[in-house]
């Protein structure tokens, strides 16, 4: 594998806290170069009943890290006698990411709800940093969302407001990032439990206009409309 070549992490992943829990969102495109290997993948993976993780980067690396953390958290839950906290889950993820940084290439967003801290989001980018954030974005599509979130993010949103924000954000990223696409999946985690939602690609806003179909551009010469590119 040529480590010096530019590689895009074909994904858009988002984690957002709201008043009462968290919303995790992701696109569903797994790309290998220009080929879409899976157009309906599920990038939001369960670690425990109350903690999920959004995966980006190498599919294999992110899966193996999730599997290990799920295994450790399961044992930890049995020992503790109660559900693990989001912080513990996130810490286990970052220990694996950090200690194997030379071999791994995966950016993860851990999100969940526990009875001590409520809804929490932890971003764990490439090198194994861990950072607790009110919201986190990741993957190649996230580049196009930094400005959007600067403007659109608010503290203390309701569940519906937050989910709409997530869906809108993922769809915006899909519109601009070639490595993101397909459907938008969301997972809502709060004190009541976990809800999975699915938004098919054709229900998402398009963010561009479509021209009227033209048989031939020569037709414009014969019609009176001087500006074929103007949007009416």
């Amino acid at each position: 594998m040529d480590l010096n070549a530019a590689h895009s992490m074909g994904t858009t992943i988002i984690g957002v806290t709201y008043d009462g829990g968290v919303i995790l969102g992701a696109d569903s495109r797994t790309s290998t170069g220009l080929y879409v290997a899976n157009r309906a993948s599920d990038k939001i993976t369960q670690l425990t009943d109350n903690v999920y993780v959004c995966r980006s980067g190498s599919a294999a690396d992110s899966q193996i890290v999730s599997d290990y953390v799920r295994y450790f958290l399961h044992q930890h839950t049995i020992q503790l006698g109660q559900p693990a906290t989001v912080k513990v889950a996130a810490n286990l993820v970052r220990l694996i990411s950090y200690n194997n940084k030379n071999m791994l290439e995966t950016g993860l967003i851990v999100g969940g709800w526990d009875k001590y801290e409520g809804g929490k989001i932890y971003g764990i980018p490439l090198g194994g940093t861990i950072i607790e954030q009110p919201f986190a974005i990741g993957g190649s599509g996230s580049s196009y969302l930094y400005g959007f979130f600067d403007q659109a993010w608010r503290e203390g949103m309701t569940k519906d407001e937050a989910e709409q924000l997530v869906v809108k954000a993922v769809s915006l990223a899909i519109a601009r990032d070639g490595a993101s696409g397909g459907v938008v999946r969301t997972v809502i985690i709060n004190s009541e439990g976990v809800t999975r939602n699915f938004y098919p690609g054709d229900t998402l806003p398009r963010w561009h206009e479509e021209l009227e179909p033209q048989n031939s551009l020569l037709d414009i010469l014969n019609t009176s409309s001087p500006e074929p590119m103007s949007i009416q």
Partner: protein
Amino acid sequence: MSSIGTGYDLSVTTFSPDGRVFQIEYAAKAVDNSGTVIGIKCKDGIVMGVEKLIASKMMLPGSNRRIHSVNRHSGMAVAGLAADGRQIVARAKAEATNYESVYGEPIPVKELAERVASYVHLCTLYWWLRPFGCGVILGGYDRDGPQLYMIEPSGISYRYFGAAIGKGKQAAKTEIEKLKLSEMTCREGLIEIAKIIYRVHDEAKDKAFELEMSWVCDESKRQHEKVPELLLEEAKAAARAALEEMDAD
């Protein structure tokens, strides 16, 4: 009072016909011979106190520490063989540090108690190890509130509102049961612990003793620390006064 094992008490890997492991019971005797150690759980924290019997007049006050901090939020008071106690505290510190480095949060007191108990129990399973000759009272304050555990040489660990080990444990337990712990703050609990230790101290058998106390409560910002000098002196004075009242009767 003591029952003779007649042959079944030579090894910790031997059961007696009536189902007892005598070596463990003998280890508990070592704890019973040490100075009294008490711990109570008040509504806002834990207070622990130790009756440190002074072996020699030449010892500096404050030496022979019997209460140790295991973690920022928890501490252990040790009764019995001091060297064994040091080993247990070292293990507890290691467990606490290890937990925090793996899980990224301070070790819950329940988990710490289970790990320490498991270690103490381990040393009762092999013929080439002897059981620990000390009992430990573990007090800590985590996100589930203040908790008090006691770990015996057998490896048994239970959670308590109030616990006592050592010479005066029977008398101490009776006194603790009289207290209304759920309504008491640690400040009040301090005074009560001091009074109990002074009361159960046997003037006839053991001459001098030093009172060592620690607490972990809201007032100490949920950190385990020695009781502040001022409060300790207040507690001692109150305890002495209470004793004199009793004697005057």
